[in-house]
């Protein structure tokens, strides 16, 4: 395929993926906004007002970066895992597999789809957050970079889950038993500095911690960890998972016998 043909093919997947979640925006965009609003009202305002500050920042402001990133993570992951597994289940993934499209383009198309959903949801939850918090973005570029890279990373995660999944149960097990605990234990609602040494050290093994702290640094200027380490970890994960996803598609794992 020429570069122009590859561009057309990529655009086709991206537009298809975008239209897929926009058509059902009530199911795909609104729930995240409602969940975020509830977190701000209950944990941020009602409980948070009694907790005082964290790193010298009002509690409701402190949790805002994590809540926005959690919405991005869940929606990027959910978009790709549902879309790709559905394509596998209904076998219309074969439409792409029989075409001359290279595998890296198929992966890229689905990931951009997840990124778009993550971005739309991130914007919506950001707007919701603006009603509850008084945050002046500390470093806009870092916020955009962290949100984008995290969205890409979890879109890839969703794709890998879908590749290996054989049943609908398989695509709910990982989000329930892996993704949710990692996200909640990744420091959305607290600083790891308040933990004992053992739990603090254990928390450092959680990659989501680095993303949330990087986001918090971009929005508030505070972080429990070094921002360079956070970016390095995110980028290494993105490259590693992208390469693995392309490898799996090339060898047809979960799709071609």
């Amino acid at each position, binding site marked *: 395929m*020429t570069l122009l043909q590859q561009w057309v*093919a990529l655009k*086709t997947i991206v537009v298809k993926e975008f239209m897929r979640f926009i058509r059902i925006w009530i199911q795909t965009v609104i729930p995240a906004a409602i969940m975020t609003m509830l977190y701000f009202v209950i944990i941020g305002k009602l409980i948070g007002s009694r907790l005082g500050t964290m790193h010298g920042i009002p509690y409701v402001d402190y949790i805002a970066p994590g809540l926005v990133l959690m919405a991005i993570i869940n929606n990027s992951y959910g978009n790709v895992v549902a879309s790709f597994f559905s394509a596998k289940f*209904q076998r219309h993934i074969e*439409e792409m597999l*029989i075409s*001359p499209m290279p595998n890296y383009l198929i992966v890229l198309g689905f990931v951009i789809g997840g990124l778009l959903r993550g971005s739309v949801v991130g914007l919506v939850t950001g707007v919701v957050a603006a009603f509850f918090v008084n945050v002046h973005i500390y470093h806009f570029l870092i916020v955009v970079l962290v949100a984008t890279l995290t969205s890409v990373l979890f879109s890839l995660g969703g794709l890998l889950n879908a590749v290996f999944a054989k049943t609908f149960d398989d695509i709910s097990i990982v989000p329930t038993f892996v993704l949710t605990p990692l996200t909640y234990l990744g420091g959305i609602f607290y600083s790891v500095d308040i933990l004992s040494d053992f739990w603090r050290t254990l928390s450092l093994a959680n990659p989501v911690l680095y993303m949330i702290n990087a986001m918090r640094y971009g929005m508030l200027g505070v972080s429990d960890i070094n921002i360079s380490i956070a970016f390095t970890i995110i980028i290494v994960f993105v490259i590693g998972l992208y390469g693995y996803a392309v490898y799996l598609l090339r060898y047809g794992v979960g799709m*071609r016998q």
Partner: protein
Amino acid sequence: MTLALAIQGLRKTYPSGVEALKGVDLSVEEGDFFALLGPNGAGKSTVIGIVCSLLRKTTGAVSVFGYNIDRDIARAKSCIGLVPQEFNFNQFEPIVEIVTNQAGYYGIDRHTADQRAEKYLTQLQLWERRFDMARELSGGMKRRLMIARALVHEPRLLILDEPTAGVDIEIRRSMWEFLRTINAQGTTVILTTHYLEEAENLCKHIAIINNGLTIASSELKTLLMKLHVETFLLNIKQPLTTVPQISGFTLSLVDDSTLAVNITKDQNMNDLFQELAARRIDVLSMRNKTNRLEEMFMRLVDRGEL
């Protein structure tokens, strides 16, 4: 002449250990209308799956218009349009989008894709339903949708895996006509089917696969000429209670007004009719007991004859 499809020594063993193909060889010439026949589980769909890169081969060589699928898979794929046996489109997507998206995957710009979608959906009588969700279509319409989708990038080789399965006679015949037109315009067509009448009507060449091996591959006429014996059913005017004895012919009674007779290639039907007339047996009509291809297929697959 470049072969549209060349397969040599194709073998496929599934991870379960099932050996689906044990050495299939096929040659399909450009412009041909080719039938791939075989009983259920013979390996036809496995062959097609490998050619279209939906399955991985174990060993062997496959080339599409000279492009080897191991070395030049993208070019080989560009030449192929596939109509699979099972419905494999998004049931919740509008028909026209299924077709235009498929064009997009082949790098065809949106304007051209829209034009071709209109052309093929119109030819297959689906244009009026273009905004309907795929799940709202009848079985026959879904099959036609898959044909439109397979043609939208205008492939040089169209592969149809049982395209008329479960389709009523009227639609089946209109699909035959459409496929004949596509073939006449230069597209090579490979068809698998259980309707042997379909293969006999449409195809110039056939190959028969059984137990993962090619057991016959030649021009249809040549294969049919190898049939030594055909069975005809004669509908007679006066009911019979006993089988007439005619020297050189083997007759049997199907019921009191139907005679079955085996005719070899060396025998003359006129001789039979003269003998029957001499016995005052009037023949009202005559037909083949089975169609010729079916007869040949059964002999090859069941009895290994010919």
